[in-house]
């Protein structure tokens, strides 16, 4: 099976989440996954950020990307849960709503594009689990992450709603836990693994988002996790970049490293931490790296 995909990075991967892209590229090299970036892609329209203001324009934004991917003739892969959901939902709405479909078709035509609804939107995690396979993920492990306790944080739109996302169980997801175990680490169970981190509120309702994120961090910490892994740049921003603000706001010490699942895989593949962008994570990963070296 040729592992070649149209790749939609999404806006965060070019800014706050460059390390997600870096680590994904490194492990893709190891696993023989070829990601071909969409030419001149635009914002997916980000859940309901554009939709609530102008629904039709938001679906057009998704459709422009889908149309570019359709020309490439490959599945469309993204690393961001929000892009994954938004682009999949556009696919669904376009197939269900004829009026919307007509209007979007017209708009695409006016800029020389068309979309026949044939693109399958997928998350990179789905590719690892279902195309690459856990055995191949595990075969490439050079330094098993023995003794490392990892809390997988799934959040929201990677797994919900199942009719749009579909590759993992919406209530009891396991894809990342399976990867954690395939890397030789221990998967930690804790109650907040599928609770929303409030990412879409972080710009406008900081206090609400921080309350939501705090609970996830504290519960993962209480469960004995050495780190959290996430599949989404939005969750990562809340859990990692804002962890310091949460500590000062609530007067607690958390100090829990938050890695992209691709960074964790990279560590088990003995890739250089710098090449995985681990120096870009806000919460220091030094203690974590030391712990790995000592085992």
């Amino acid at each position, binding site marked *: 099976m040729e592992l070649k995909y149209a790749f939609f990075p999404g*806006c965060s991967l*070019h*800014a*706050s*989440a*460059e390390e997600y892209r870096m680590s994904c590229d490194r492990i893709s090299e190891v696993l023989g996954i070829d990601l071909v970036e969409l030419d*001149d*892609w*635009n*914002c997916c*329209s*980000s859940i*309901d*950020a*554009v*939709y*609530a*203001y*102008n*629904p*039709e*324009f938001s679906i057009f*934004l998704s459709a*422009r990307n889908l149309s570019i991917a359709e020309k490439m003739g490959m599945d469309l892969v993204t690393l961001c849960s929000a892009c994954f959901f938004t682009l999949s939902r556009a696919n669904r*709405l376009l197939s269900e*709503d004829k009026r919307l479909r007509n*209007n979007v078709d017209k*708009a695409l035509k*006016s*800029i020389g594009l068309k979309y026949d609804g044939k693109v399958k939107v997928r998350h990179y995690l789905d590719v690892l689990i279902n195309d690459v396979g856990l055995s191949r993920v595990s075969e490439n492990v050079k330094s098993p992450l023995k003794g490392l306790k990892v809390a997988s944080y799934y*959040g*929201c*739109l990677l797994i*919900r*709603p199942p009719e749009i996302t579909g590759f993992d169980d*919406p*209530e009891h997801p396991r894809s990342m836990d399976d990867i954690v175990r395939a890397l030789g680490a221990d998967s930690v169970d804790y109650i907040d693994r*599928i*609770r*929303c981190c*409030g*990412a*879409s*509120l972080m*710009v*406008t*309702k*900081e*206090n*609400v988002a921080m*309350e*939501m994120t705090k609970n996830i961090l504290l519960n993962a910490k209480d469960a004995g996790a050495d780190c959290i892994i996430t599949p989404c740049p939005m969750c990562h921003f809340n859990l990692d*970049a*804002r962890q*310091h*603000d949460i500590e000062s706001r609530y007067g607690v010490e958390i100090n829990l490293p938050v890695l992209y699942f691709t960074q964790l895989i990279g560590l088990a593949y003995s890739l250089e931490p710098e090449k995985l962008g681990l*120096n*870009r*994570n*806000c919460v220091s990963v030094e203690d974590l790296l030391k712990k790995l070296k000592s085992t």
Partner: protein
Amino acid sequence: MKSLEFKVTPEVRDDSFVKEIAKMRGGENVLDCIQCGVCSGSCHARFAMDYTPMQIIKMIHLGLKEKVLSSRTIWICASCYACATRCPRNIDIPLLMSALKQMSMKSASVSEGEVKARFHKDFTEIIRKYGRIYEPELKMRLISKTDLGEIYRNTLLALRLWRRGKIKVHPVRIKGIEDLSRIFESSLKEG
């Protein structure tokens, strides 16, 4: 959380409200709600809402348009789909909340201080300008100019992000930006 203690008098009821909503995407199944409360029980943001999602739907049934469109709840929903995934009546609650936000923004119900209403508009305008989001500009547009705590926290955050190379100095503008702007203009007229 408020309880539904207000009086539902004929004067406050707008019977066309539920019909209007049922026509919007997300509102299709709103009349099927059996008030089981699984949405409210699943909501991770309900602590910050004035009415639970279940109460909002009941209020729609009762025609309490003004109360619904001026509620805090519709702006707090984070679209995480915990509710809709479990709803036994197939109500797409996050999309319903989006429909209510649209109505609220179009009517005069939205309070001036509601920063989330500005968020949707500013976010869309930035996409129209560049084709991709540029977070520093979005944050600068939305940050409270009077809340010193927020300004202080965000300045420190920006420095922290800067040191890690997480802030780009310039926004990226896509090649097809003219196309995007034109479509935006025409979809506004029709919408």
